[in-house]
């Protein structure tokens, strides 16, 4: 999504968000992420207005004090930015790819199932399985911090069974054009 992203051409406008909309966004985040209200409050204080940065292809980035904190595509799930995820790594379910896949991930590729099911990979156990279409944090074998944010194309149990093709679509990753933007 962010492999190519130029603020000068891709951003069409910035507007402050209405407080009623902010409220609904806040409750949506609390519902979708595993984050305590207090922690969210620390990231995005209630008094600080949220700014919506509209971009091409119905992509909306939300910033606080010019710093992007999360984004959304159409009305889809809300993703945290990678820098926010690094600070609060527990907010998204975690999946891990093996070492061989890191190279491709950092080139923007989607993550294939075998990368998760091989020895270096990790998928949550069956009882904590993640359904399809859920934002996940992508970790890498032997690394401490997340390397990307993705969305599951198959449920985690399905990934284990099918073991072929795209399992998680990469949304943003370390070193893409969105990573380079520290403030908007």
């Amino acid at each position, binding site marked *: 999504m962010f492999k190519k992203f130029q603020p000068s051409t891709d951003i069409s406008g910035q507007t402050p968000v209405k407080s009623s909309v902010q*409220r609904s966004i*806040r*409750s949506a985040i*609390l519902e979708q992420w595993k984050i*305590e*209200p*207090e*922690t*969210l*409050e*620390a990231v995005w204080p*209630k008094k600080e207005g949220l700014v919506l940065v509209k971009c091409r292809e119905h992509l909306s980035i939300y910033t606080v004090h010019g710093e992007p904190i999360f984004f959304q595509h159409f009305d889809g799930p809300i993703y945290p930015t990678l820098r926010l995820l*690094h*600070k*609060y*790594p527990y907010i998204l379910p975690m999946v891990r790819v*093996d*070492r*061989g896949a*890191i*190279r491709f991930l*950092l080139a923007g590729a989607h993550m294939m199932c075998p990368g998760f099911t*091989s*020895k*270096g990979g990790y998928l949550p156990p069956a009882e904590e399985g993640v359904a399809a279409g859920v934002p996940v944090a992508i970790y890498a*074998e*032997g*690394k*401490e*911090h997340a*390397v990307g944010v993705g969305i599951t194309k198959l449920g985690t149990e399905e990934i284990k069974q099918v073991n072929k093709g795209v399992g998680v679509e990469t949304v943003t990753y*370390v*070193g893409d054009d969105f*990573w*380079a933007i520290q403030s908007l």
Partner: protein
Amino acid sequence: MPAKKNRDKGDKSTTTTTEPTPVAIEPEGPPPPEPRPPVQVLYCGVCTFPVEYCEFGSSLTRCKEWLHEHDLEAYNKYYSEEALQAKIGTLSLEAQSKLEKDTAKKEAKAEAKADAALKKKMASQVTIKRIERNKRKHVTSVHGLEAFGIDLKKAAKQFASKFATGASVTKNPQGQEEIVVQGDVSDEILEMIEEEVGILKGIPADNVEIVEEKTKKN
């Protein structure tokens, strides 16, 4: 006054999601919930990646140097002998050597690219053009500043405030952007570039030329 109080209360109950209400969340836990402190991640000063991902970037040698200078502990954690051994992990030896080769190649490529960019930058010209508007009235257009990484909008603002005239970023007929300043200020702009005033930094004076353009009417 009472009415207002009531409203406040009502507001709170509808937006309990954000209000730290210790009673509701932890009925028997005495300490009120505190926001969890963020994890501090050390980002590389060279490639901006978290330091453990430097090896996948295109400037590993420089990243290593940077880390060695800034955080010896972390350096030892990631680049000591054992760490390198452990890192290979599940990868086969063959794949590992291939990866290393790839990294070296990438690094060389990135370096060459940076070199070429620098060369291009050094070769590019800044043109200050004096354009006649009326017999004794001129505008000055400055072209080519963006090649030196200067924000044109900010530069225009700087010119405007310095000369107390209008200055704007406009597109010329070729579709390139240039700054148009009202009045004949070409010499002053040249001086500013030479003295590197404000944001006009990093332009070698040899790359700047002054051109005069007259209307062909007469």
